[in-house]
């Protein structure tokens, strides 16, 4: 009897074992051990030793930092925030249109058009934008021919180009979760609002928008986090004045091979994102975090 009970009890652990072990060993442990790498000192030739060098954080982000990492982080948060805001402002009407203004049989095809860009490799997509907006591209050629742009006018290498690239690349990840929550709203809610003499505008701000909060939050999680850390858009569409923290992490790891610096930068990036998203969740209130995944 006891053996049988023990076997029943162990079923969920046996089922969960491999999947959770893989995530713990190859995701969670690296993520945590990275913190200890940031406290090491040394160089790639001699190797790194753990010396509990907490000073590195002040060295990298303090006022006298040799490389302005705080600026790169601030810029990344600003660009990522701007891109997220654009995807919400444009993505919400698109999701609303698909959820409420499109006949049922057209929903899937029209939604597929929105996510179509995901079928093209992320790097090719971004590269093609650079190709189109670049100095020899059609847009600038026409603008110059029409004398709307001077010879020095450029689109690439600007904050706008990088923010636009970030917004373009993450757009589907904002529309999908908002569409999913809008689809689940019971239409009787709107009738109730109308019966209670709410104008369409008031009805929207008092029923639809609050009910779609969870979708907006999932969208923000997906878009903001990856935009802030992204090294590709600012590399392919930007220049020196758009250098972001993601590029700094990649360069200090792969080019300068300063592992402790790269680890410290990514630890601070994680912390900054965590604080901002936690504050957002507290401020706008959100349901059980499990519902968001």
């Amino acid at each position: 009897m006891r053996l049988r009970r023990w076997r029943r009890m162990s079923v969920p652990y046996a089922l969960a074992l491999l999947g959770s072990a893989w995530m713990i060993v190859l995701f969670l442990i690296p993520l945590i051990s990275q913190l200890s790498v940031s406290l090491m000192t040394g160089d790639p030739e001699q190797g790194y030793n753990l010396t509990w060098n907490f000073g590195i954080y002040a060295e990298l982000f303090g006022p006298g930092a040799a490389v302005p990492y705080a600026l790169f982080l601030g810029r990344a948060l600003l660009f990522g925030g701007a891109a997220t805001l654009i995807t919400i402002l444009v993505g919400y009407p698109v999701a609303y249109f698909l959820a409420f203004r499109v006949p049922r049989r057209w929903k899937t095809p029209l939604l597929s058009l929105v996510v179509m860009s995901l079928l093209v490799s992320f790097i090719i997509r971004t590269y093609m934008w650079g190709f189109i907006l670049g100095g020899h591209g059609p847009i600038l050629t026409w603008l110059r021919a029409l004398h709307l742009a001077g010879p020095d006018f450029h689109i690439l290498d600007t904050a706008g180009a990088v923010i636009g690239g970030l917004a373009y690349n993450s757009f589907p990840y904002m529309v999908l979760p908002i569409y999913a929550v809008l689809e689940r709203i019971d239409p009787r809610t709107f009738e109730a609002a109308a019966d209670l003499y709410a104008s369409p505008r008031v009805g929207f701000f008092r029923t639809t928008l609050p009910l779609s909060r969870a979708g907006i939050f999932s969208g923000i999680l997906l878009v903001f986090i990856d935009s802030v850390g992204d090294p590709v858009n600012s590399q392919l569409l930007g220049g020196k004045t758009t250098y972001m923290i993601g590029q700094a992490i990649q360069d200090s790891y792969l080019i300068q091979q300063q592992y402790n610096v790269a680890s410290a930068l990514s630890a601070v990036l994680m912390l900054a994102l965590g604080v901002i998203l936690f504050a957002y969740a507290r401020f706008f209130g959100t349901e059980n975090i499990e519902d968001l995944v």
Partner: protein
Amino acid sequence: MTIEERRARIGRRPGFVLPAIYWVVIAVTLVPIVAMIAYSFNIAPNHRITFVWHGFTLAYYLHLTDLSGLWQAFLVSVVIAVLSALISLVIGLPLALALDRYRFRGRSLIWGIVFVDISAPSIVVGAASLSFFLTINLHTGFLTILLVHVAFNVAYVVVTLRSRLSGMGTVLEEAASDLGARPIPAFFTITVPLLMPGIVASFMLALTMSIDDYVITSFVAGSSTTFPLFVYGAKTGMPPQVLCFGTIIFVAGALLALANGALNRKSSF
């Protein structure tokens, strides 16, 4: 009145602002895709794409493998995508079952790890994985790419499957066990077929996530090259064959999506 009719009534005000926003968005979405397809057919004098139209050619499609490294990188990407999707399905399905059907110690901890795994920025995951492999002295290359791709794909598989599982309920499985089915045959004859749409969806998601990943892979690739790494490396100019591969992947993906849509439409009647 059915739910659908009620929905339709909400949308009875015609309005053109929303459709206009939608179609502008689609037009912008199309810009780089159309450029990619069009310029894959343009003659490129120095084997780098240019804006000037030099004439239509199929040469780069006929000589896809001429560009050394690209074909190999593409194969590496496909093999890693398929393997990582399969492995994450095999280890992710039992985990999703455990999380959905059982209450056990550590459940919310594991769910938390899944959540962080999905939301952690790629750049941090890449840097952390490389630190880890350097610490344990594991040589980076094909194997480390695969290990890390499974580590992020498991989370996507678990989330997709769990939402299907919780929508499915356990009624049919209970019926099977009442009729005397042993748990394991019941799982394969009842649960798996019911879960098939979720299994296909999570497999496709994992495939896409793996084949398109640049940021994480750039850290753990060592001397291996995947398709996104190869494309990113072509900074001095894009060889036209890259656009051909991009176009082929796009067309294949679009056809799969169409076939899937047609099948779903059929089965819903």
